[in-house]
């Protein structure tokens, strides 16, 4: 069973086109990516400040549509 954990993100981080977010597992000693850990079901919540929602889709990441508010 997966243990629930929380990690801090930088607050108020504004990112623009070309920037990347890499969700990964790191080696505690070297900081290198541990390839023997699978990452899945990544969901990213953002506050859009430029562009359209449709523009958010990139690679395997799809816009989550549905009832809002």
């Amino acid at each position: 069973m997966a243990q629930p954990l929380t990690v801090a993100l930088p607050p108020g981080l504004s990112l623009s086109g070309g920037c990347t977010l890499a969700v990964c597992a790191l080696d505690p000693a070297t900081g290198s990516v541990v390839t023997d850990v699978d990452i899945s079901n990544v969901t990213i919540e953002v506050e859009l400040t430029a562009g359209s929602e449709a523009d958010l889709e990139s690679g395997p990441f799809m816009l989550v549509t549905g009832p809002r508010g």
Partner: protein
Amino acid sequence: MADAQISSPAVEAGESVYTIAPAVEFTLKTISAEFADNGAAAAWLPAVLISSDAGLVIARAVDQAVQVQAGDDASVSFFPGVKHAGGGASALDLPWGMRQGDAPTTGTACVLGTAFDDGPAFYTWDAFNKCIILHEPGQYLMMASLTYDETAAGTTPANGRLSLTVDVTETGLSTSWNPWFPILEHTTQVGSTDSAGHKWWFCQATGFVGFDPRMTSVRIRYFAGFSTAATPDAVIEWGIVKISTLSATFPP
């Protein structure tokens, strides 16, 4: 603008990367991800690496205290305002030592020949000088007790004196000196009578010892005796001194 969500159900080995499209700008709010160990050799840290459009890492969202053991899985939430997890609660495990001696000669330092210690000794017993020698800086609580009784009923002895004196041996400072500092003294008057009509006395006292890291050692001498030398009217049954580490650093 309203919040938006993007999600990827894909299973990626090592890292799942989202690249922001050229026309987009947003404020990052939260990230959620599932981590499944697939044969990692050692513990690992769930993380998000944030890189600029030049490929340079501008931030790493990771906490050394949020570590997943090899073989375990994790469901991880990343969001602002999470407090550092810290090193994890660790049980307080400061060493203590206790020594006991019986029938010492009155007027001389007590020979605390029996040791009751918790784990590795953080002190040395100097049998010749009858001293406890501390080797580790820190702050310590000293507790000492003394029990004695009169040799014959009605021969009330002179006041007993229980004292712990501290000899500080220092190096590295401009002055080298090693006086004996009496850190506590106590005279006892409390007594009770045994079946033979002999009065018994018990006394105890406590004191603190600070071991500055600039010192090389601290010596503690337990002196149990009577204010009148060679008092034959009492027998010291046993003395006990216990040393508890309050802090492994000094100042604490």
